[in-house]
């Protein structure tokens, strides 16, 4: 990495931190001087919105790990205000692609030979671009169609630098903020996840593991990985087409009932989460397709998660306690899943569950974690700093919330208990 790049990136982070400080602190000091009370709760929404826009602009300018961090923030509604979640979730789809010349060098370097020796054809226009890599379609010499995921050059180095800068900024923030958000543990967790995502061979292993789980199920398709052409930074996989899972009109035109697709989708995720304890933790519509013969295509295993033993049973017990409104069982289930309160007062768990139930359509838990319910849970946790939420649960809750969103788009319901065979 050029020294100038290093200086520029560090300066951008420093400038962003300074701007955020001004956005949050100037009104505090001004109001104090004027003898007015500090802004609280929803009064702070416009401030959060301004701050989120600054962060978004920095992410788009710097790309790399900053985009990744913002995507991560957008998944942690248990910690960050809704304005941040709304603003930063744009980054899931809106990452500008790099020119082909940039990725060509990576492919040739990684495969140790010129592109024409491996690919009979490779589209210069990417079909998708994300924070760490972009995807091009191509064809091998034996005629097999492939999708080639290529990591951006220097991304590892950039990430290391950005993480160092972010940790510095974090330390400054924690030093000067009297009640800081717990950013450093999140940053450490994110660093771990990014490390996993940068290793495409690990992603290939995760894909293989999920494919193996569904090997007897012709309703699930996980693209084959062409190991001979895959490295830590280039992933060559089978090209699999299909209709976008949320395209209800296309599904109906193909004679597929969207309700059946939702049932399949839920059965697959419930099997991964509750049964196998290993799951693809990013089921957004861009990663899911349906073929004409109703096969569910699963893509992108970069964010895959191994759950602790017994976690699936713990989730089931939590759902069960909510279904029966058993407060003692709710407390037990929350504790077994790793939720903690700083004071040891377990009534917070019951409050969380009650708030979730109040947001369900019927006021009862019938087996569906809707987005509204999971959002309510994260709100409850964020508003009550005494409660710590295990990161595994955040990913599971977020995944069920995303699946519920897809189900609602298709006019159906994503019932977890039904997918387990209980309805």
């Amino acid at each position, binding site marked *: 990495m050029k020294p100038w790049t290093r200086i520029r990136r560090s300066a951008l982070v420093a400038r962003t931190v300074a701007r955020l400080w001004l956005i949050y602190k100037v009104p505090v000091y001004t109001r104090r001087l004027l003898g007015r009370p500090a802004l609280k709760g929803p009064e702070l929404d416009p401030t959060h919105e301004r701050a989120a826009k600054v962060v978004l602009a920095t992410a788009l300018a710097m790309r790399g790990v900053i985009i990744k961090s913002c995507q991560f923030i957008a998944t942690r509604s248990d910690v960050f205000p809704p304005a941040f979640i709304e603003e930063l979730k744009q980054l899931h789809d809106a990452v500008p692609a790099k020119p082909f010349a940039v990725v060509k060098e990576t492919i040739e370097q990684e495969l140790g030979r010129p592109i024409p020796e491996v690919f009979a054809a490779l589209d210069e226009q990417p079909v998708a671009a994300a924070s760490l890599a972009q995807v091009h379609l191509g064809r091998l010499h034996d005629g097999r169609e492939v999708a080639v995921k290529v990591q951006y050059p220097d991304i590892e180095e950039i990430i290391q630098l950005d993480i160092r800068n972010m940790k510095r900024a974090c330390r400054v923030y924690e030093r000067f903020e009297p009640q800081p958000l717990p950013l450093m543990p999140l940053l450490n967790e994110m660093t771990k996840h990014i490390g996993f995502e940068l290793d495409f061979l690990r992603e290939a292993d995760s894909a293989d593991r999920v494919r193996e789980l*569904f090997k*007897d*199920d*012709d*309703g699930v398709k996980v693209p084959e990985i062409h190991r001979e052409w895959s490295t830590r930074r280039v992933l060559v996989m089978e090209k699999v087409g299909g209709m976008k899972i949320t395209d209800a009109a296309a599904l109906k035109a193909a004679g597929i*009932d969207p309700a*059946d697709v939702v*049932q*399949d989708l839920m*059965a*697959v995720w*419930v*099997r991964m989460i*509750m*049964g*196998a*304890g290993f799951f693809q933790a990013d089921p957004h519509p861009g990663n899911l397709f349906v073929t004409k013969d*109703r096969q569910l295509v699963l893509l992108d295993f970069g964010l895959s998660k191994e759950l602790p*033993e*017994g976690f*699936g*049973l713990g989730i*089931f017990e939590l759902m*069960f306690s909510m*279904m*029966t*409104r*058993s*407060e*003692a*069982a709710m407390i037990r289930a929350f504790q077994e899943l790793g939720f903690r309160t700083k004071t040891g007062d377990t009534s917070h768990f019951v409050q969380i569950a009650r708030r979730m139930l109040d947001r369900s359509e019927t006021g*009862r838990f*019938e*087996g569906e974690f809707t987005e509204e319910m999971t959002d309510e849970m994260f709100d409850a946790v964020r508003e009550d700093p005494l409660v710590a939420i295990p990161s595994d649960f955040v990913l599971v809750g977020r995944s069920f919330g995303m699946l519920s969103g897809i189900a609602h788009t298709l006019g159906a319901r994503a019932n977890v*208990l*039904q997918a*387990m*065979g*209980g*309805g």
Partner: protein
Amino acid sequence: MTSHAEPSLTFSEDELLGSRKYDEPLIAGGVRCHGGFDEDGRYHSPRTLHRTPAISAWQDQLLRSGHDVIEISRALMPPQYPNVEQAKLLLRHGVRDPMVRSLTIISIVEGFGAVIRDVRVPELAELIVEPIDGTALSHLRHGLFEAHARDEAGYEDEGGHKQMWEAARDLALEHPKIPGDVLMRLMGRRSRAPKRERPFPQLDEKLERMLAMMAQVLVIEVFAEGTFQWGIDVLSDPEVSAEPQAAGDMVRYIQSDESPHVEYLRTALSEVRARTLRTVDGKQIAGCKVVDGLLHDMLHNLTRNRPREQREDVRESMIAAMQDVANPTSLEEEYESLASAWTAPAQTGFEPSSAA
């Protein structure tokens, strides 16, 4: 309860959910469960104070009007796998995981029973030609489904059958570690949900779905009688159970609680069977044709391939679990020698031809 000279046929939801006063509550595994004991130490099921006489009164009314109450032949009930002797053999040899897994799965399946409260009940009076006042049918969403749900899964901080099965397991097998694959086993083999074909598309969809659900639950409840006996026989054996009396009793309590479920379901389905249903195109269809059709399909599916498939799935895990003992081959041979042969009867008793 409304007072009449004749036995009452109309009950409020609170009455159907009402329990007698107990001298001593049932505590299972440290959890206060439903039901309790009278001063003689006899167990009384929950929510039966009015529910049991109500069901009897509805059945009597049906019989008096010249109709039968549905009976599902116990010969259709597939044997439990592993059977009692096989389960005891494994436990005697220290192979506990399959039993722990089975008992945990039973407890979870019992808990799933709570979903019956979410069944959408249509306006039955509009869909059934004859009146339904004073029948089990008219009480489905006014106490019967709710009582069933609470019995199975518990309600608020009072445990139900789920917690009672867990207690029986923990008493007999001394709080065993739950195998990590229990939910995977519960879900079984996954395959694409088949394209849904409605058996009676001429019916209101909600009504058809409700009747199908009731037929399915009735069959499961009847078949569960075999599971209860199996549980009692295994868990009451002092050779393999740490607390034979308490563990066996726990299953006996569950068994007695289940009786009202079978009875109200067979009563309500028999009431439909004795009536005429309106179709969505303004025509009519005999209730017996619908109920018998649903029961026949259900019994046919549950007795033909399912027992064999389930047996194969479970057997695989049994054999795997046996590999940790000193002489797995000999244990496997003995285990197989204890197998029960079973062939499904040719008739379900609800064949379409018999549904006039």
